[in-house]
């Protein structure tokens, strides 16, 4: 009588228990032999990968591997058996796994080794990280957005305060001039009153220009925080948020920043703000274009000795002659929800850094914005 036929045999009970234990596990549980062929595959694994235990048993574990691990597992096993060097056994790591339908997902694997009867086996525990990653991306996005709003709000607040301050004299001018026109339309116009109104209009125009002068002084006064940094570092800060923004709109973001650019001395936050703004505009410009064109390129290069340009190039709908003329004017906007301050502030920031912000139309399609900044001598 073999042990399997005897229900009271100790090992059989253990085996049954192991089976139900395996199937009760939330994580996928996979046993492979020394050649990498699958021996056991629990319920969770069936659900996670989409294979039934029957069809996967005897197949190579590589079937379940995605990304750069696929096609390499045989080599891993080989290596381990030759060198005894553990890359994953007893350590665990994050991998890309592949389902039966070919889709891939991030997974955490932990591998253990068992030897019995002179046979080596590997036991793998696989946990699907999709939900965790989604939650992390979400919280990362929220953090970045919060950061971004707080940066924007200072500018937004400034812009709103400026708008309010300018609105007052403009309203007064509108009222006085409208009243004057009405007065002059009367049969016997009261010239003295009109004169009085004109004097007021003159005063209010000066008041408005005073508001603008004060705002300029204010932006200058805030430009005190300068630190030595690199274009790469600034782009690295901007990249995660820009990527989220781009990918959410099915736009590819290509970044091409040479590693050997000379350092720059800037207010990092402000320059990040400019780049984010330009990238956002690029994304907005491509929302409705053919998917084939949806690509933003962020690159940097020397344009002159001691001068580097960071270029944001989109393939969007472009900018008309009419719009181009007013592009950098405060309160000019083509968007439904915009203050029209973005590019105006960007240019102010560029100029405060002794740089410039220019745009040109690309030969094929879309536009490029170039933020040019002086570099520091490398010492």
């Amino acid at each position, binding site marked *: 009588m073999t042990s399997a036929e005897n229900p009271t045999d100790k090992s059989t009970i253990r085996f049954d228990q192991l089976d139900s234990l395996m199937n009760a596990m939330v994580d996928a549980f996979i046993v492979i032999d020394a050649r990498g062929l699958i021996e056991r595959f629990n319920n969770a694994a069936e659900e996670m990968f989409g294979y039934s235990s029957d069809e996967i048993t005897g197949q190579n574990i590589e079937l379940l591997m995605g990304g750069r691990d696929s096609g390499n597992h045989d080599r891993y096993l080989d290596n381990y058996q030759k060198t005894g060097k553990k890359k994953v056994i007893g350590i665990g790591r994050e991998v890309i796994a592949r389902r039966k339908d070919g889709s891939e997902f991030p997974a955490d694997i932990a591998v253990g080794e068992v030897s019995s009867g002179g046979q080596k086996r590997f036991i793998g525990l696989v946990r699907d990280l999709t939900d965790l990653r989604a939650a992390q991306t979400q919280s990362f996005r929220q953090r970045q957005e919060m950061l971004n709003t707080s940066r924007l709000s200072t500018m937004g607040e400034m812009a*709103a305060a400026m708008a*309010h301050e300018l609105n*007052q004299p*403009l309203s007064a001018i509108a009222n006085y001039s*409208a009243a004057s026109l*009405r007065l002059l339309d009367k049969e016997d116009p009261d010239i003295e009153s009109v004169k009085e109104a004109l004097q*007021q209009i003159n*005063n209010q125009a000066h008041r408005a220009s005073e508001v603008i002068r004060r705002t300029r002084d204010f932006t200058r006064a805030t430009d005190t925080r300068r630190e030595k940094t690199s274009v790469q570092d600034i782009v690295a800060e901007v990249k995660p948020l820009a990527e989220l923004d781009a990918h959410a709109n099915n736009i590819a973001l290509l970044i091409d920043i040479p590693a050997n650019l000379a350092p720059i001395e800037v207010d990092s936050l402000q320059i990040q703000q400019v780049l984010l703004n330009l990238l956002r505009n690029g994304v907005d410009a491509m929302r409705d274009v053919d998917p084939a064109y949806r690509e933003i390129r962020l690159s940097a290069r020397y344009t002159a000795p001691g001068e580097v340009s960071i270029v944001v190039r989109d393939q969007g709908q472009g900018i008309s002659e009419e719009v181009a003329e007013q592009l950098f004017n405060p309160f000019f906007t083509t968007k439904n929800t915009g203050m029209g301050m973005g590019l105006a502030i960007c240019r102010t920031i560029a100029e405060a850094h002794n740089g410039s912000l220019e745009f040109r139309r690309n030969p094929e399609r879309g536009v490029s914005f170039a933020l040019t900044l002086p570099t520091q001598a490398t010492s």
Partner: protein
Amino acid sequence: MKGTIYIVDDDDAVRDSLCFLLKTVNLDPTTFTSGDEFLEKYDEEMTGCVLLDIRMPGTSGIEVQKKLQQLNCKLPIIFITGHGDVPMAVEAMQSGAFDFIQKPFRDQELLDRIFQALEAHEADEEEANHQRDIQHRYVSLTPREKEVMEFVVKGAANKVIAIDLGVSQRTVEIHRARVMEKMEARSLAELVRMSMLLEQ
């Protein structure tokens, strides 16, 4: 068009220019440099409309609106708002403001709103006066006349009223005539309308 335009704005230039503009179209503006000043000088006899700046130091436009409502003020309020104040303006509208206008505005836009507000206020006043008159007339009825009026507006025939009140039909007829006379109602329909106004 009768009534005064009460301009409440902390900005000298805006306030004075509004005043100047309204005078050229023969309106009757008076100005206040703050919400507090207006609240201080406010009295029930005021008629016309209020041009109220939404953003003011001290008591804000919205707060002025609330306080005026507590005082049972019926003056229509037109809010003057800036670029970013639209949410506030919406709130003000929901609280019963007559309208709002964004700075800087076209003069005709403002004048149209002012005229509409004055008209609405006049109509309100008329209705309020009418209601007050009817109230006065009703108070002058005797208890028995009030009883009869209650039956009459429900469409009861004299005969039915007589039985219900235990008086002769002739007596009901006399009371009924007195009610119509005192209430200055020319028809039953008008009397019904008046009784509906009294219930409000």
